[in-house]
């Protein structure tokens, strides 16, 4: 199905199933611990051996000697894989560093060996017997120090509109401020894990991966085997946040281990290995300049960002939202990429916008204060209904102002005293903050297959993944709505590369595109059903498990009485995303209290008002947003991979050292979805919310802290040591 004109009324608009708050259909499996995650698939193949990965002890340099003899001789050991016996390996398109290092080492904890043994404990013990001698080389580990040498990244030219320099210089009110965000880890619950089994030259990987088709291609490219020989199976994923977009060392090493051992091998990354072995959200330094008239109209807006990555890597696109979010005739956005020898930087929930808005939305707060304006009013005044870089290109929907207005109303914004450090309750200083949330809606093709059997059961198959977001459920809702059956008449099978290729889970594009693909396949199945039942004339109705047309009604199951009906289709897009800017919006509101003695910052209330197209399942959408708000709170207040700049690695590489919020940190969270449908987006008229929820939260917290104590912290995370010197004197 080609989607190249705005959606007209279609079966989804019935909203009998879609749009209803629906429990996850996979919920019972999750709550009973019976959803099979990759490492626990003891039943899929017999004779599984255990692999344990050894990570490099240096960040940069070479292995000069490696002695695996003791490990090989250790009890239970079946095989040891290193670069020396792994054969010639390629590198996946989505990997910056190779997944198996040696002799060259590109980053700390890069895999250098895998020990395969009969038990996990034997493999782990033997792994410690491997002696590796390294020749360490000096590397670059400090973004601030590498900043001046940073260059324009490939495919990321500067973007200018009008005369930024002139307009900024002429602006009566100016802000020029620099902000920093640290490296952050995905820290999802389930570690990267894979079971690999070879059958002749065919490889099956039961793994945890968000993007099955990318994965197949990258395994093919890395192992130099044809894609037809590879099967990836990933039906349940214990969180990813972008950390599982790509094939990682667990999958490669399991495949290599299984080959050398001659039997299936399972590998999970240990928690202490995850932070340096895999990818992370790179740190940024961001300079923002805003010039405005005294009335508060932005005349010049400039956003420059510096980040680092391994050679051949990509920048963190932190200026992305600034190209689109606010009006202003003169604009400059630019990114510079430094070469750093830290582990690979890559996508983490809302790459670009999440750190970008952490800076931009503080800058907006600072500017509003300079102008003596309310920060909501300032944002609304500079709202735009068109792409500010390409005047005349409208937004498909843009209800940012409404998000902010409704949010202000609900949150009691009027009670905020704009004068910092003026609200106090006993020991606590109280502050409120606001920020805009913004994240683009990306459209990308997605396919599905639908089957109808003689019992009237509809089965959907697509290689789409559910990373804990609720994909199973919205896909079932889509099929139920389109085929006119109740939810329990739909079975959904996901995460298998033998199924049609979907959009996968990432960039908050999963929900809209994957359901649109399922819708397309269902519409094709409807045609097959109609033909089979002899409804050739008018467009038949599908409802309550029946099909009717011209006064005749027949059970849907009847169409499959002679055998299953199968239809496959995909959604593909025309140029509506070129003609229209498609984005999602939020107003984030936060109330914090700051301990006037210790500077400890605690959240009291959080509210997000979101405008993100049709909300397919308000229940799981809310879960996505509150989860993202929690992650945003973590980014604001505690999350930081601490870089040892001498040795080039993230020091706090476990969950005791890398702090993410716990329950006690997260207060009452309220989420409101504005009533919105976006017919430009897809036949589902939906967009994404999974990343919108994090975008802007950090700055809302920062702005609330400023309101509470009058201290502007521009370097995240906002920990108490950064405010301690500015707290009221104690008696």
């Amino acid at each position, binding site marked *: 199905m080609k989607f190249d004109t705005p959606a007209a009324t279609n079966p989804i608009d019935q909203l009998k199933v879609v749009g209803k708050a629906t429990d996850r259909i996979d919920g019972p499996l999750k709550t009973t611990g019976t959803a099979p995650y990759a490492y626990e698939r003891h039943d899929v193949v017999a004779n599984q051996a255990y692999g344990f990965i050894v990570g490099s002890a240096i960040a940069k340099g070479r292995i000069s000697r490696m002695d695996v003899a003791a490990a090989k001789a250790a009890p239970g050991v079946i095989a040891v894989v290193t670069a020396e016996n792994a054969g010639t390996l390629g590198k996946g398109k989505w990997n910056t560093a190779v997944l198996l290092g040696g002799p060259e080492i590109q980053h700390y904890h890069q895999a250098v060996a895998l020990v395969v043994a009969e038990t996990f404990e034997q493999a782990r013990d033997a792994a410690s017997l491997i002696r590796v001698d390294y020749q360490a080389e000096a590397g670059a580990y400090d973004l601030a120090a590498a900043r001046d040498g940073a260059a324009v990244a490939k495919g990321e030219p500067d973007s200018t509109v009008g005369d930024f320099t002139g307009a900024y210089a002429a602006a009566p009110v100016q802000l020029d401020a620099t902000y920093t965000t640290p490296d952050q880890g995905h820290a999802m619950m389930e570690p990267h894990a894979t079971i690999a089994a070879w059958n002749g030259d065919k490889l099956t990987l039961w793994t945890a991966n968000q993007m099955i088709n990318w994965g197949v291609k990258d395994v093919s490219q890395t192992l130099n085997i044809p894609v037809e020989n590879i099967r990836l199976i990933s039906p349940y994923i214990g969180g990813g946040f972008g950390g599982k977009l790509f094939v990682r060392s667990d999958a490669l090493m399991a495949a290599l281990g299984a080959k050398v051992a001659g039997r299936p091998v399972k590998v999970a990354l240990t928690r202490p290995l995850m932070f340096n072995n895999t990818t992370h959200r790179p740190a940024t330094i961001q300079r923002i300049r805003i010039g405005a008239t005294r009335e508060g109209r932005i005349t010049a807006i400039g956003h420059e960002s510096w980040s680092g990555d391994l050679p051949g890597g990509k920048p963190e696109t932190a200026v992305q939202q600034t190209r689109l979010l606010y009006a202003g005739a003169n604009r400059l956005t630019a990114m510079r990429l430094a070469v750093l020898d830290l582990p690979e930087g890559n996508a983490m929930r809302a790459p670009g916008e999440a750190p970008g808005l952490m800076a931009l939305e503080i800058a907006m707060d600072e500017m509003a204060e300079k102008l003596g304006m309310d920060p909501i009013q300032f944002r609304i005044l500079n709202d735009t209904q068109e792409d500010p870089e390409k005047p005349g290109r409208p937004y498909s929907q843009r209800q940012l102002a409404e998000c902010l207005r409704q949010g202000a109303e609900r949150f009691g914004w009027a009670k905020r005293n704009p004068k910092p450090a003026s609200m106090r309750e006993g020991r606590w200083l109280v502050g409120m903050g606001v920020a805009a949330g913004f994240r683009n809606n990306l459209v990308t093709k997605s396919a599905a297959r639908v089957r109808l059997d003689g019992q009237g059961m509809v089965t959907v198959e697509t290689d789409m993944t559910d990373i804990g977001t609720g994909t199973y459920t919205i896909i079932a809702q889509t099929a139920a709505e389109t085929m006119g059956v109740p939810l329990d008449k739909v079975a959904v099978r996901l995460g298998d590369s033998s199924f049609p290729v979907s959009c996968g889970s990432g960039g908050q594009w999963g929900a809209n595109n994957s359901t649109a693909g399922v819708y397309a396949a269902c519409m094709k199945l409807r045609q097959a059903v109609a033909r089979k039942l002899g409804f050739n004339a008018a467009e038949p109705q599908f409802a309550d498990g029946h099909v009717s047309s011209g006064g005749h009604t027949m059970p849907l199951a009847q169409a499959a009485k002679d055998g299953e009906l199968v239809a496959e289709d995909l959604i593909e897009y025309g140029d509506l995303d070129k003609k229209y800017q498609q984005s999602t919006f939020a107003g984030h509101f936060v109330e914090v209290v700051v301990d006037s*003695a210790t500077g400890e910052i605690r959240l009291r209330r959080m509210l997000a008002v979101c405008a993100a197209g049709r909300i397919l399942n308000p229940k799981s959408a809310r879960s996505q947003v509150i989860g993202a708000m929690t992650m945003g709170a973590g980014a604001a207040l505690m999350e930081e991979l*601490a870089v040892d700049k001498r040795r080039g690695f993230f*020091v706090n590489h476990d969950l005791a*050292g890398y702090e993410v919020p*716990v329950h*006690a940190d997260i207060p009452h969270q309220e989420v409101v979805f504005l009533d919105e449908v976006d017919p430009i987006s897809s036949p589902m008229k939906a967009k994404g919310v999974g990343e919108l929820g994090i975008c802007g939260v950090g700055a809302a917290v920062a702005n609330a802290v400023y309101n509470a104590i009058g201290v502007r912290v521009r370097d995240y995370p906002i920990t108490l040591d950064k405010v*301690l010197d500015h707290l009221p004197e104690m008696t």
Partner: protein
Amino acid sequence: MKPFTYERATSPADAAAKAASIPGARFIAGGTNLLDLMKLQIETPAHLIDVNGLGLDKIEETPDGGLRIGALVRNTDLAADIRVRRHYGVLSRALVAGASGQLRNVATTAGNLLQRTRCPYFYDPNQPCNKRQPGSGCSAIGGISRQLGVVGTSEACIATHPSDMAVAMRVLDAMVETVRPGGATRAIPIADLHRLPGDTPHVETTLEQGELITAVTLPKPVGGVQLYHKVRDRASYAFALVSVAAIVQPGGTNGIAWGRVALGGVAPKPWRVEAAEAHMKQGAKAVTAGLLADARPTADNRFKIKLAERTLAAVLTEARG
């Protein structure tokens, strides 16, 4: 994890004797610290002696009106004990400020006292660390040291002792009872249990090889307002940046008749300087000046000094009522 053998001791004296005679033997109590370290091969005992089930899990009153806490009493049970809550509030408060409910259900009194540091370099076997590998150097000095110690540290090691419970016990003048390999018992003032690192940071206590902690005794209640204030980056489930255990008797000139205070999160052991307590009436600044007179912070953790002072000030304000 290295292969190891395991046995259950039959009595405290048996446990101590075996621990001294079997090479590489270690006691295991709740295992919440030891097992984690074994998985990382930071601890590599050849033999584990399980000291659960030796009857060391009781809390009894002592003849002089104090409390004798068995070494195997779980942190949860100790925190909930009505006598502890009534007369040793600082201990109860410190316990519930530590770890998580699940961990406290398993963690024991002795294990808590002997838990090892949380210095991140100690946890990474690739990195030099004098405590883990004597003579290899200290990675934290000149590295990431925000969490680490500011006082009592040395050129060889700046790690802190992470326990909350021990800080409260220090302010309560607890005694640590042990049985030695030969069967003799002794009582060690908690102040003398943990050693400062000097140039041997791997030697952390004054216990001898095989010496088993059997109990911790608390002297008879001293009254006062008993508070524990733990400051951390997140609201729960995090080690202290700074903690203050205080017993304060309100009254007198400045609202304080007398007081005792110990700090956590700043030193290789619960940090108390009795002489500093004489300044209690002058307030937090004077007391902290005495407590941290010899502080040698890093650039990363200098803030702990001010934080300690302000936290103590808040505690004193609260204690005055």
